[in-house]
């Protein structure tokens, strides 16, 4: 998991989608997700995927990071499809749904700092849940760093060797045990800091407005169009299925435009 790189992309990015309103991005994400849920048409799903690739390209997301993260759910969906899909086409659709939903989620999290993503959730769940959500994200960085250091220390002391799997497993388990103890000391330190800073059972987060309302409106319109297309092709499948290839035209045009724009920006 590349949480450090995810946070860097979300915080330091300056593209049009980075500066869009977090609420707009969350709504657009929900609409695209609904489109993926509704559709059982391979070409409509392919269109959604191409559209998301265009957005990722214009947002100048690191392709290695974005697509490897999005491929992760697709990999597991592939296992599920292999185990349960009745035919290859249905299996492909299951994988495609996972890829679309995964890339939508990844685009959101790579362009929006985590406090802004969690802020709406924090407002509807009990205080302890919302606050713990923020603490979890922060602690994950610290623990990943510590775990990486522990593994390096073990490797340097020859605890991890290809020829000694049992010894390596034992060393890794002890590293995880050490990490567990470290994490509890970390929670005690956090508790002390929160008490000193006068924590009153609520960590407050704010939601900034979008830099350009027109871009927010464009993002919402594109997501709405995606959902509408998905619904129309689902409702009128009997008539529209032979013309499904038409759905690909607009996303392909968007992809070409995105590629040209990003090349010019370089």
């Amino acid at each position, binding site marked *: *998991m590349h949480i450090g790189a*995810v946070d860097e992309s979300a915080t330091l990015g300056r593209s049009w989608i980075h500066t869009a309103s977090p609420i707009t991005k969350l709504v657009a994400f929900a609409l695209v*997700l609904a489109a*993926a*849920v509704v559709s*059982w*048409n*391979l*070409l409509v799903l392919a269109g959604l995927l191409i559209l998301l690739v265009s957005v990722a390209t214009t947002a100048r997301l690191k392709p290695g990071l974005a697509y490897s*993260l*999005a491929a992760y*759910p697709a990999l597991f969906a592939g296992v*599920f499809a292999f*185990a*349960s899909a*009745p*035919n290859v*086409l249905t299996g492909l659709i*299951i*994988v495609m*749904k996972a890829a679309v*939903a995964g890339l939508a*989620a990844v685009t959101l*999290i790579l362009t929006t700092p985590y406090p802004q993503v969690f802020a709406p959730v924090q407002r509807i769940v*009990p205080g*302890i*849940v919302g606050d*713990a959500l923020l*603490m979890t994200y922060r*602690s*994950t960085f610290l*623990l990943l760093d510590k*775990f990486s250091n*522990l593994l390096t220390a073990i490797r340097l002391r020859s605890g991890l060797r290809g020829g000694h799997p049992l010894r390596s*497993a034992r*060393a890794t*388990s*002890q590293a*995880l*045990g*050490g*990490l*567990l*103890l470290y*994490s*509890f*000391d*970390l*929670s*005690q330190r956090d*508790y002390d800091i*929160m008490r000193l800073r006068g924590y009153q*059972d609520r960590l407050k987060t704010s939601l900034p407005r979008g830099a350009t309302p027109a871009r927010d409106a464009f993002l919402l319109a594109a997501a709405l169009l995606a959902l509408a297309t998905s619904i129309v092709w*689902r409702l009128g*499948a*009997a008539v529209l*299925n*032979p*013309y*499904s290839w038409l759905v690909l035209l607009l996303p392909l045009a968007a992809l070409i435009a995105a590629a040209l724009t990003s090349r010019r920006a370089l």
Partner: protein
Amino acid sequence: MSHIHIPDGVLPLWLWGLGWLVTLVLVGAAGKLAERHDMRRKVPLLGVTAALMLVAMSSEIIPIAYHVNLTVVAGILLGPVLSIVAAFIVELILALLGHGGVTVIGLNTLIVAAEMIIGWTLFRTFVALLSRKRAGVAAGMSTVITLAITTTALVGIVWLGGSAATARETGALDPADLSFTNPFTEGVFSVGLFSGGEADAPSAPADSTQSAASESNSLSVKRFAAVVYTLGPLGWLFEALITAAIVRYVTRVRPTLIFSGALAEKERRIPGDEAGGL
């Protein structure tokens, strides 16, 4: 088998919607219960435990599509109420990182929370039966039994969703000859945007050809169960060995954490070489 690695839109609305509803009620109730006492201490504890699970889940064993979860360890440390909250937090963050669907966050939370609570209960029972000296064995046994139970719950969910996630229009592409034609031209459609049960529609004529087509298009729960129960035990065993080793290690260094839970420790600890000279 902590997560349902089923993509968004495969399970029917009633199933994942019900999962979300039950989860929100449980998380709300658990949150209110947890807020009653010593909340300032619970927030960072929940944060680091959930983060620990996330770190463990970042190590994946590709050939068997399995990753360590540490759900039983986290359950032992947090107890049942905080486990529900931690499970929800972990699943929400994982879904946002593309690891697991957003619509199945509810069902995922229920499965992970069940894993943590069953693990906690079994561990306490086994420790009472075997003695504290065998905490590692107790943790390993608890993990295997817990994962077997939750894997069965996962198969049950696929079985519940299987009949609804059947025989939908799969688009213009015909899998038989890869031609762009409508594969369902016999009038089997009825509109069901989220239910997806076109072939199961009551208005559709229920002749034998159609029911055969419906059967051939439905998710194969038997095949899914066969794959899960074949690969799963490898993962259960691996998770049990890791869990047992961690619990044995922590029991030697700081037994209160394991036997009384993370909130039982009141004395201050000075951070040092927690890895025990690794």
